[in-house]
């Protein structure tokens, strides 16, 4: 067995130890950020459920259809694709971008990328983008979501596109995240004719409905951004946990090798001394 020198092994051990320190730190950072991202997603829920129930009430109570709920012949589509800002998160970015590509196949699509990885990807493939302003998914604020939703809803109202989707990563648990697609426009409402309520709308139900559509979309978007962020951190945490574990295993086998090499060197020295003294 061609022995690697003890010095080489020692160097290697040192570098693996450094790497393990980094992956361990990244794991800890991801877990603490993950908690915050999850809380953020939770906080936005009441707002969203109020809007949803109002929209359901309005559409249950009226026979006319708003332009935002009417299905149209689809010529152009709009996709909001949410990916991460950084790599080292296992398959997180690839999974969501792959799904976006599959969904957009054979469609005339414009894209609104959120997150550096999404932006870079669609730049590379030369896709048609609405804006490239949202480079950092971590810095997206509620205000940004309202801005995006205004752009999307006015684009839809003007007929620039006939449907809009969000491609994001659903947060199922810390260990599992699933890339998924939701349609935001035309808006899906639960019509329930039997639960018709007598509610006074001012100025009228349609005006109220159209006024809250941008808020509703902003709500969906904010939820998706928060969930994607939580998923990214979850994926990174898992990836870094695995990396830390692998580094630990490597260290074990390297120190075994090191000890063997050391023992071998000592044995050889003894043999040499013994055989020398016999002369």
């Amino acid at each position, binding site marked *: 067995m061609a022995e690697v020198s003890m010095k080489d092994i020692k160097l290697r051990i040192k570098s693996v130890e450094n790497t393990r320190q980094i992956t361990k730190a990244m794991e800890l950072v991801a877990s603490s950020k993950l908690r915050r991202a999850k809380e953020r997603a939770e906080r936005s829920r*009441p707002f969203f459920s*109020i809007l949803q129930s109002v929209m359901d009430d309005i559409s249950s109570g009226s026979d006319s259809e708003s332009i935002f709920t009417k299905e149209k012949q689809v010529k152009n589509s709009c996709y909001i694709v949410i990916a991460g800002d950084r790599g080292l998160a296992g398959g997180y970015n690839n999974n969501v971008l792959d799904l976006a590509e599959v969904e957009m196949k054979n469609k005339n699509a414009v894209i609104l990328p959120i997150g550096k990885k999404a932006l870079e990807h669609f730049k590379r493939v030369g896709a048609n983008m609405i804006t490239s302003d949202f480079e950092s998914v971590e810095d997206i604020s*509620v205000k940004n979501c309202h801005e995006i939703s205004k752009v999307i809803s006015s684009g839809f109202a003007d007929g620039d596109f006939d449907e809009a989707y969000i491609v994001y990563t659903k947060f199922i648990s810390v260990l599992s995240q699933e890339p998924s697609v939701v349609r935001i426009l035309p808006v899906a409402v639960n019509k329930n004719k039997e639960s018709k309520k007598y509610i006074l709308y001012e100025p009228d139900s349609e005006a109220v409905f159209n006024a809250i559509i941008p808020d509703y979309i902003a709500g969906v978007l904010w939820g998706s951004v928060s969930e994607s962020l939580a998923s990214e951190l979850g994926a990174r945490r898992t990836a870094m946990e695995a990396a830390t574990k692998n580094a630990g295993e490597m260290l074990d086998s390297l120190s075994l090798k090191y000890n063997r090499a050391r023992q071998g060197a000592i044995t050889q020295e003894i043999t040499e001394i013994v055989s020398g003294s016999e002369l």
Partner: protein
Amino acid sequence: MKSFPLKIVTLDGEFFNGQVVQVSLRSIDGDVSILAGHIPYITAIGMGECRIYFEQASEPRRAACMGGILSVSNDCVRIAATTFEWAEDIDRERAFAAKKRAEEEILRKKDKINTSIAEAKLKRALTRISVADKIK
């Protein structure tokens, strides 16, 4: 005077949850005030001041409230606002800076879309400033 439960939420979370006797705010159609026992009512919120009265004829708690909906049902009044800021939390310097930026943008930009965005920004800044001024 009878009180009723009021809940105020935005995407950032819950701002208020408690009993009040009156809430006044600006809807897209003009100012409205809600008292206890109002019929089920829904309207879209405009840009303006929201006043919450905890007791009759007392000084209200003020806030800047823009966008979203006001929903009155038999058991609860809910405000789901795009932005909601208590008057004491408004950063006047930031609001003034935003006002200045928006004014400059309106002067500079010629195309319709950007001008309307800048005008909306200006209106928001002015609303925040006027609400913040009232508690001084």
